[in-house]
């Protein structure tokens, strides 16, 4: 029976990985992910978890070791942040291309420079194209629940892809929250033993990762594209099974108080919690505003998103990263892609907030709302803007 208790989210996530009975953890500590791997190392050292903990010399080695262990058919877990994720970069593509099931937690943190250990989404957003399934949790309960869900998705015979679970560094990872932690026995009823579709086997030898010459590379990429798009159905099914078993239902896209909303805020991660408090106050005052949040980011749940924002006249999109010299933030870019050419598409107001740990307060939502409201009342759509910057963003696109 699961117990609700106050616990640091990193510890709860590490325990959830332990209760998933992972076989191999290969990880290198980096702020703000450190407590997750430290706790897993303790669980292994103290004999609570029968797993191989590989204390590698870098994140590049961590992801390489994870590829090896997944190829050998072991349930594999790792965690990282920021520069660590960047150091894994080239190996991330390989894990996906070789269709190696594994779960990686990313406690999202800004990338240098200037060096900054605090939270934004620049680490994950620069790894959008690696071919991994990617999810974003907004709080500790969700992060903890998504650990067994991610393992089940990753290992599903129809999926067989690595899965990345993101949540905001410090803001979620270091928060002490009341969390209803599933027991090992409960997780066992949801997550079957890992039965890899293909694994290294001396009695049945084959070559994993051979050269893909120009005559086959395009086909290999198409196979990967198909695999991640086709993972949508199993993901939804697994979310539902989790809900049926444990009572907490998760969806690829979450909506909050969007009924009849003229303006919908779109965002990911923990700032949604602040936004919900803000929206409650706005709704009490009669303002028709709601929130839509991506939980699933890859594969991009475009149809769910279109349904969620149907009827809205203006979308205010909050990004936690942007492409310098480019077209603004990634969430806004992808939402525009999703809605381009659809009838009655809402206008889009893009803002970039919460960079490198800058707090996002309810007053920031007031400020963004004013911009969206002006567009709702017929003002021209402004270019993307760093609304929290001192000195003013010159607003060019």
């Amino acid at each position, binding site marked *: 029976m699961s117990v609700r208790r106050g616990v640091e989210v990193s510890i709860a996530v590490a325990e959830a990985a332990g209760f998933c009975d992972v076989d191999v953890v290969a990880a290198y500590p980096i702020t703000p992910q450190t407590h997750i791997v430290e706790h897993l190392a303790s669980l292994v050292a103290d004999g609570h978890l029968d797993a191989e903990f590989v204390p590698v010399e870098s994140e590049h080695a961590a992801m390489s070791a994870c590829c090896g262990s997944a190829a050998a058919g072991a349930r594999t877990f790792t965690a990282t942040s920021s520069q660590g994720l960047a150091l894994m970069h080239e190996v991330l593509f390989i894990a996906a291309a070789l269709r190696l099931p594994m779960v990686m937690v990313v406690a999202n943190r800004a990338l240098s420079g200037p060096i900054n250990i605090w939270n934004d989404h620049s680490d994950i957003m620069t790894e959008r194209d690696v071919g991994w399934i990617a999810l974003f949790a907004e709080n500790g309960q969700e992060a903890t629940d998504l650990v067994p869900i991610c393992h089940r998705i990753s290992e599903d015979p129809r999926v067989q892809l690595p899965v990345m679970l993101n949540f905001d560094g410090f803001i979620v990872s270091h928060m002490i929250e009341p969390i209803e932690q599933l027991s090992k026995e409960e997780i066992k009823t949801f997550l079957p033993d890992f039965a890899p579709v293909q694994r290294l086997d001396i009695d049945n030898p084959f070559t994993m990762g051979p050269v893909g010459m120009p005559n086959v590379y395009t086909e290999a990429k*198409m*196979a990967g594209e198909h695999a991640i798009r086709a993972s949508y159905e199993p993901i939804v099914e697994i979310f539902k099974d989790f809900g049926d078993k444990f009572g907490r239902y998760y969806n690829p896209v979450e909506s909050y108080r969007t009924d009849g909303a003229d303006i919908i805020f779109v965002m990911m991660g923990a700032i949604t919690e602040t936004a919900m408090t803000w929206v409650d106050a706005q709704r009490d005052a009669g303002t028709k505003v709601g929130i839509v949040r991506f939980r699933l980011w890859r594969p991009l749940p475009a149809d769910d998103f279109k349904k969620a924002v149907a009827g809205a006249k203006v979308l205010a999109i909050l990004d936690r990263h942007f492409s310098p010299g480019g077209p603004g933030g990634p969430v806004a870019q992808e939402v525009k892609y999703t809605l381009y050419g659809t009838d009655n598409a809402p206008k889009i107001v893009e803002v970039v907030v919460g960079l490198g740990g800058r707090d996002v307060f309810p007053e920031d939502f007031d400020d963004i709302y004013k911009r969206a409201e002006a567009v709702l009342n017929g003002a021209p759509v402004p270019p993307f803007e760093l609304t929290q910057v001192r000195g003013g963003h010159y607003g060019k696109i």
Partner: protein
Amino acid sequence: MSRQSPTPKWQELSLGCATTEPGSSRYQQTGDWRSERPTWKWENCIKCAVCTVFCPEGCIHMNADNYPQVDLTYCKGCAICVAECWTGCITMEEEKE
């Protein structure tokens, strides 16, 4: 499912593009990387076979007359045979097409 042809459809690839059966060099024809091909001056060849030993592709073999013969389907034109040949009877000729 295993890839049996040089031009498979994406649906025909094995999981993760793995090579699941031996003999993949039948369709991995690496010879098209070559910009120069080794050419023998037969009157100087002493049939020592050192070129067959040093060829990293293993694509030179001795023919029925005991002269070396290169399989251009796999020769990448690395010229190691030229460097190793004792009599200097191999030269690299530019590929014309």
